[in-house]
C-alpha cells in the first residue's frame, strides 16, 4: 500500500445544486493521504477536473458535513466515513 492510498475508503455525497453540478449524488473512493482537513478536501475537489472544478469553483459557498455533523474548513477528516457537500441550507 503506497502513501497515497493509506486513507480508508469513504463515501462522498452531494446535495442540491452541488449534486446537479457535480453530476453525481454519491461516490465511494479512497482520498489521497495528504488530505487532512475539510479545506484540503475542497481544494482537491476544485482540482479534480470537469465537472468538479466548476461545482467547487467557489468553496466559500459550500458546506461540509462529516458523518452527519457540520464540519468547518479547519476540521480534520480523521476517521470520517461519510463526507457530504452541499450549499447553505434553506429549510423551514
Amino acid at each position, binding site marked *: 500500500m503506497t502513501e497515497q492510498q493509506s486513507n480508508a475508503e469513504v463515501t462522498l455525497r452531494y446535495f442540491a445544486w452541488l449534486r446537479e453540478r457535480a453530476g453525481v449524488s454519491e461516490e465511494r473512493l479512497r482520498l489521497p493521504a495528504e488530505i487532512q482537513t475539510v479545506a484540503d478536501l475542497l481544494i482537491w475537489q476544485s482540482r479534480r477536473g470537469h465537472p468538479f472544478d466548476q461545482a467547487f469553483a467557489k468553496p466559500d459557498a459550500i458546506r461540509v458535513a462529516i458523518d452527519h455533523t*457540520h464540519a468547518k474548513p479547519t476540521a480534520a477528516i480523521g476517521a470520517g466515513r461519510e463526507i457530504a457537500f452541499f*450549499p447553505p*441550507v*434553506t429549510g423551514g
Partner: protein
Amino acid sequence: MAVRVSTADFDLSAEMAALSASDTTIGGVALFVGKVRGEVGGVELISMTLEHYPGMTEAELERIEADARLRFRLSASLIVHRVGELKPGDNIVLVIACAPHRQDAFAGAEYLMDYLKTRAPFWKKETLVDGTDRWVDAREADEDAAAAWASRKS
C-alpha cells in the same frame, strides 16, 4: 422530544394533543407553521421541491432539540418537516414547544426555528410560472437570527 421528516402533511390539533394531553404541568404551548408562499419576487410560484439529507437531517434536528432543552425549561417539543413537491399554501414545517410558562414556550419554538433554518440539511427549489427552476439562496437574516441566540443570556 421528537423529530420527523415526511412527505405527508401534519395535523396541528393531533400533534399538539399527542405532545401535551397527558402532562398537566404544561401551561403554555407555542407552535409555528411555515408555509409555501404563492409568489417569489412578484413571479407566481408553481411548486417548491424540498430535498434533504436523510440520516443527517434527523441527527441535526435532534441536536437542535437537545440544545433547546438545555437552554429553556421545556416539557416537550416536536419538529416535523416535509420534503418532496409542495404547492403554494401547503405546510412546510411544524415546530411545537410545550413548557410550564409561556416565555419558555415562545423562546423554545423560536430557537428551534432559527437553528432549523441555519443548521438542518434541507434545500428548497422553486419552480416559477415563467418556466424557471431555481435553488433558493440562504438568507443572511436567518444566520443573524441564529447567531443572536449565542450572545443572549436566555
